[in-house]
């Protein structure tokens, strides 16, 4: 994974040589998550307050009339109030390239991004390296409306196989600038891949013993689950393949030309490959600053 970091650092080097003043983006958010544990049994569905801070700095350079490249560094921290083993900090470089098909704010823009993030999680097994890539096509329809479609991929190589996850997503978003100050956005999409879920030991033991059916029993006995204590003593984390349909609504009033307050609700309905379903919800209020 150190090789991956070196790769992206080298990729960014030509841009840094021509570095202009970097941009700086700060984000602080507080939220409430329902079923943070991604559990199917209601008694196992743990909720918690979440607190996040992130800082990103970046440099960009126009390579031609229509192509712009960028590189930067991002760092973040997540605090999960009731389940502190989920706390983590992250740090890593990112690179991006953008092609604008024409002139002006209504020209379509294709943007590619890639990044490698080192995760320092409180839970030892979750520590590792996350590699991400995305491709976004965006088009402003008029000064008030903008649409975008994104496909992205993410993989986390963790110390413990229980946290080894990867997924790809396809999602779209619509942004409406209601006035100069008020912006509303909505979006949704689907995730496919392997993601981590959790269960208390009694539930997990029952699943392994066949109480949830032979298909669940066979599948759960085949995956690399681990006791991680993430949500209490004896809690198990396990990677499952499946999909999740997700959508979100957001209201983001501008506080000035450099700051925005973001109020967001998001929901995801996940189904794993043996038909186990659960829902997650999250409310977040965040403050964004761009310097």
């Amino acid at each position, binding site marked *: 994974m150190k090789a991956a970091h070196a790769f992206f650092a080298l990729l960014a080097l030509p841009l840094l040589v021509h570095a202009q003043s970097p941009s700086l983006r700060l984000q602080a958010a507080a939220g409430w998550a329902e079923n943070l544990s991604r559990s199917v049994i209601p008694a196992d569905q743990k909720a918690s307050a979440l607190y996040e801070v992130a800082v990103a700095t970046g440099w960009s350079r*126009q390579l031609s*009339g229509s192509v712009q490249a960028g590189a930067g560094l991002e760092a973040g921290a997540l605090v999960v109030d009731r389940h502190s083993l989920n706390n983590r900090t992250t740090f890593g470089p990112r690179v991006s390239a953008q092609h604008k098909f024409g002139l002006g704010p209504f020209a379509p823009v294709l943007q590619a991004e890639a990044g490698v993030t080192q995760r320092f999680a409180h839970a030892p097994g979750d520590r590792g390296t996350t590699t991400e890539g995305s491709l976004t096509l965006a088009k402003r329809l008029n*000064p008030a409306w903008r649409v975008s479609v994104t496909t992205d991929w993410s993989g986390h190589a963790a110390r413990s196989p229980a946290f080894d996850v990867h997924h790809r997503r396809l999602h779209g978003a619509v942004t409406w600038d209601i006035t*100069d100050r008020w912006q509303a956005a909505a979006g949704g999409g689907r995730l496919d891949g392997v993601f981590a879920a959790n269960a208390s030991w009694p539930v997990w033991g029952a699943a392994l013993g066949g109480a949830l059916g032979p298909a669940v029993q066979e599948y759960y006995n085949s995956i690399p689950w681990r006791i991680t204590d993430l949500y209490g003593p004896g809690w198990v984390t396990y990677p499952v393949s499946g999909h*999740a349909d997700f959508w979100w609504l957001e209201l983001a009033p501008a*506080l000035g030309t450099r700051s925005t307050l973001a109020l*967001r609700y998001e929901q995801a309905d996940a189904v794993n490959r043996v038909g186990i379903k659960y829902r997650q919800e999250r409310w977040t209020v965040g403050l*964004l600053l761009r310097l």
Partner: protein
Amino acid sequence: MKLPVPAGFSCLLLFVITGALPAAEVTFTVRDTRGGPIADAVVSLHPLGPTPAPAVPGEAVIAQEDKEYDPYITPVLVGTKVRFPNRDTIQHHIYSLSRPKRFEKPLYASGAEESVVFDQPGVVVLGCNIHDWMIAYVVVLPTPHFAKTDSAGRAQLTGFAPGRYRVEIWHPRLAKTEVRELELTAVANPSLAVDLTLRPDRRIRRAPEPRTGGY
């Protein structure tokens, strides 16, 4: 004194007599329908009588500073050279898709300065292809008698010959240019208050946008 006005507008003209022949002077106060001042409106006088001797165009400057164009509105005489210094520490990409002057200045580095001669009358909208919220207007006029309203909505025009003029008032939020005809006498220093209806200000938003979360 009341002048006839187009439907939907009201116009209050106050004439105050000062000064003497041959040069005249006039002050316009441009207001919205609630009586608030309208800044950055361009008021120009176009002679309807004998054409005066052509004026010599000068220079103007529109800077790129703090990721904005400054000034927002620049009225110029046809033939004026406008300089565009980049006073930011980042790149910009000036362009215009407007018919009176189409041009593009890509790879516009910090500290660079290029210029464009605006040789056709009309309104030219400037953008930055990197920072979509950056916008400025160059109002290219065939007359040297023009002024831009200040924060109090006032524009003072001086040095024109007495006679009959077409008065044009332009603002980016007007549905169309406001046009009047006025007889401006040498001895008069008319002060005109003009009430206009503006459309909502729909510029591209600059404030940062949240990112889509993960799973």
